[in-house]
């Protein structure tokens, strides 16, 4: 059952990513909603779910966009986020947002490092100055906001549904009376 939810989370994240990326092609608004989905799964269902979400989401991204390293980076980040989620009490959406922000920075640095290793024949020296810090900062901000919205929504949705049911029930009982 948990695997099914992880799958649903990842697929929804990928669909949202490609749908929204269509309107920001070549723009400065860089975001990775798949990563947000991976961290969401990791914080909600633990490190194993985070790993699985990272593997599925990362590989889907790699295969669809013909990129490299996304699967490995997301698996590691999903695992790490899951471990953080089990070690610390992260109930409030703002605390979880900080995990999303940290995960974005680590994920991007992992990708940059991995690509530097793969392209080492072309770029023999790798330096911190080569890291696109401005793009990482923009991505971190957008991912964090997306994560905050996702966690707020997941927290508010069950309550809203229950309140809706309660109000329907009470109006029905009034009518019967």
């Amino acid at each position, binding site marked *: 059952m948990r695997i099914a939810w992880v799958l649903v989370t990842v697929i929804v994240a990928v669909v949202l990513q490609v749908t*929204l990326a269509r309107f920001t092609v070549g723009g400065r608004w*860089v975001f990775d909603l798949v990563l947000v989905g991976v961290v969401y799964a990791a914080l909600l269902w633990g490190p194993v779910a985070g790993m699985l979400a990272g593997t599925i989401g990362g590989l889907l991204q790699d*295969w669809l966009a013909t990129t490299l390293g996304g699967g490995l980076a997301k698996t590691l980040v999903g695992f790490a986020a899951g471990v953080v989620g089990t070690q610390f009490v992260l109930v409030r959406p703002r605390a979880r947002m900080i995990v999303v922000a940290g995960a974005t920075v680590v994920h991007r640095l992992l990708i940059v490092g991995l690509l530097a290793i793969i392209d080492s024949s072309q770029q023999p020296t790798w330096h911190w100055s080569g890291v696109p810090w401005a793009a990482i900062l923009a991505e971190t901000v957008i991912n964090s906001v997306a994560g905050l919205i996702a966690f707020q929504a997941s927290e508010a949705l069950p309550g809203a549904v229950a309140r809706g049911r309660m109000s329907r029930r009470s109006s029905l009982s009034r009518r019967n009376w």
Partner: protein
Amino acid sequence: MPNRRTLFLLAVLCFGHVLLISARVQSKSGMPVIEEVAFGAFAKAQGGSAAVSDGIRGIWTHYLALRGAATENEALRRQVLELQGQLQQEQAVANSSKALEEALKLQRSVAAPTLAARVIAGSPAPGSLTVTIDRGSDDGVQTDMAVIAGQGVVGRVINQPAPHAAQVQLLVGRNAAAAVTLERTGAGGLVVGGASDLLLTVDYVSNQADVQVGERVLTSGQDGIFPGGFLVGYVERSEKGTNYRLVKVRPSVDFTHIELVLVVLAKPGTDASHKEQP
């Protein structure tokens, strides 16, 4: 801390990823079968999500954001009138050049057939500048076909297209390139993307070439992908370099707002598709 089973699973997954990465790096062409299957399966979901987002946008643009539509309509009518006039002039020029071609028994130029396509999705991975269009192999789209828009060159089809979708690498992307010629000077070069500011760089332009800012950059057709004569952009910066001139080009296409494109249905690498013998 996670238990041994979890750590073992992590190690297995990481090992699997390393194997997949090394397989892709060594094969150079990637893993076409897996990528093709994944792209084909996901293309339908992308089409569905595009329809939903277009529907929402349609409600907004057609019903809620109609302020100023009458003024815009008037301006567009005037623009159509001007364009009709320009078209007639162009047709007159084309007819006279056709007559000249026939008189001089030159090769006759024919326009390559094009297919209109809608952009249905952006790139799944941030930083990768590709888009997905709603036309695929069933519509005659093939790998390496050129993709253009009203303003100029957009990019080329990459990977094997799905039956009803294809992936387009944008000209401003990291590994994109096209053979170009500078309109005024006639100097040739290779335009490459990959810059963070979305400007294109023209490589291999001689230091002797008198390249001026604002000069039009057109495809030369020598790469076997892009037909010659399509607008790529305008020179924004031109400086003398050590070996070659440093030329930066502002693309004519606004890559942040691409909705409709045209796929040039000429088979890549065949110059015969653009020229026909008399």
